[in-house]
């Protein structure tokens, strides 16, 4: 049996460089896919609240499909299914080096569905009397949405939103099955690369675990502070 040796397998070159690169990629993935998911979730919400039946159905279908489908097979479909289908249907090759984009799209699709669902619950929790008040003041429907409904909805569901965004950060580890170029691997991908080189899993895995614990705590702290601020405003208004 070998001894556990963090100095050799984690804190030595080139492994530390790989892992730090992985950490930065994890951050990039978390932030970009989180923003993507927020935008997507917002537009799906608009669709679900739309007057047009078509958009309502579309939004509802999106949420039911992507909420109830696991992310790993979804990523496999995006990585390997889409290029093949694309080639067969268009006769042209799917553009090269889209793995990272596809990964971000997959993460956003998954998280977006949850965010839309959470935001809808928030919108439904806004008192109908407030809409009435807005209408009496002569505000347009758009202004009512922007000025009254959305801000309050976000405040009400802020904790659920933050926990989903943290979950999204953790989901970036699913990139383990994504064929990324070596410099784009996230922290778990780099850890498994080290494991492939050195035949030892414990040290790089523990490092990746620490990174994710710290990320969850730091992101959690920041987002929770924001959520608490938002909630305080709800209670202050009430």
């Amino acid at each position, binding site marked *: *049996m070998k001894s*556990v040796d963090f100095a050799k397998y984690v804190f030595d070159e080139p492994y530390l460089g790989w892992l730090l690169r992985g950490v930065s990629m994890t951050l990039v993935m978390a932030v970009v896919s989180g923003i993507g998911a927020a935008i997507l979730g917002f537009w799906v919400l608009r669709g679900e609240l739309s007057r047009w039946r078509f958009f309502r159905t579309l939004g509802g279908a999106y949420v*039911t*499909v992507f*909420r*109830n*489908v*696991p*992310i*790993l*097979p*979804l990523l*496999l*479909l995006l990585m*390997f*299914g*889409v290029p*093949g*289908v694309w080639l067969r249907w268009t006769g042209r090759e799917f553009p090269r080096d889209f793995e990272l984009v596809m990964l971000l799209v997959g993460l956003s699709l998954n998280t977006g569905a949850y965010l839309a669902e959470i935001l809808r619950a928030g919108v439904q929790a806004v008192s109908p009397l407030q809409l009435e008040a807005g209408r009496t003041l002569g505000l347009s429907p758009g202004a009512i949405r922007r000025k009254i409904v959305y801000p309050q909805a976000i405040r009400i569901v802020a904790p659920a939103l933050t926990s989903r965004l943290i979950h999204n950060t*953790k*989901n*970036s*580890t*699913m990139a*383990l*099955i994504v064929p990324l170029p070596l410099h784009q691997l996230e922290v*778990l991908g780099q850890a498994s690369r080290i494991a492939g080189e050195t035949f030892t*899993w*414990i040290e790089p*895995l523990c490092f*990746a*675990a620490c990174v*994710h*614990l710290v990320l*969850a*705590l730091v992101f959690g702290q920041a987002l929770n502070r924001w959520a608490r601020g938002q909630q305080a405003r709800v209670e202050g208004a009430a």
Partner: protein
Amino acid sequence: MNWETHLRGLMLGYPPLPESVNRDYPAFLQTTGGLALTLLITFFSLIFGGALGTLLGLLRRDAPKETRRTLLRRGVEGGARLLANGFVEGVRGLPIMLLVLLCYYLPYPVLGVRIPPFLVGIFAFSLYTGVYLSEIVRSGFRSIDPGLRYAGRTLGLPPRIFFFKVELPLALRAMKPDLINLAITVFKDTSTLAMVGVAEITYIGRQTMAAHPKDYALVLGVILISYWVPATLLSLFASRTEKARFKMETL
């Protein structure tokens, strides 16, 4: 191509090699595969995780303020709460993929026990379920009006009877939709076990795809649908109970 055999493989698994079946472990877990194994692992994880989560949740419950307790008892309870909180925060901070990999790679070097992958899966997902469940249990008990406790005491109900007859049923009713959502999450996330060679549906799907790469999209479609259908049915059920809860509360 023989789609019937592939579909059967995806749903029920492939016949295993006689040499790879380990007599120390229940055969039905080792010889099933595909969606059946996914469901089995989900089922066992929910049961074991349920026990763990209830325990953790009860340990993490907020301390009742006014009751008279000895210093020792308060100390023990506080310590247990601290430990349980630390455990829950630690496991919750880990992505499920990392949790699965840790459960797969650590037991032998650390403890010297060889655990077959399906047990690794059940273990990892029991932890996962337990930790999230403890949160649900805690907030379920939090949702109970503290006034009830005074009412119970005034009526002279013994604490045990109060817990089992009043607190628990109310908390369970409040927890129901969250529990169903947790079951859906666990069911979906078992797909990560494909990374450690558990012959659940994603793993078998990938082996099927290896033989028929032209049908990647098709096989993946079958996999996604077989996750989607049970998950959607369950979530419909959850939203119905949620509506029921909502109605109950407004009344």
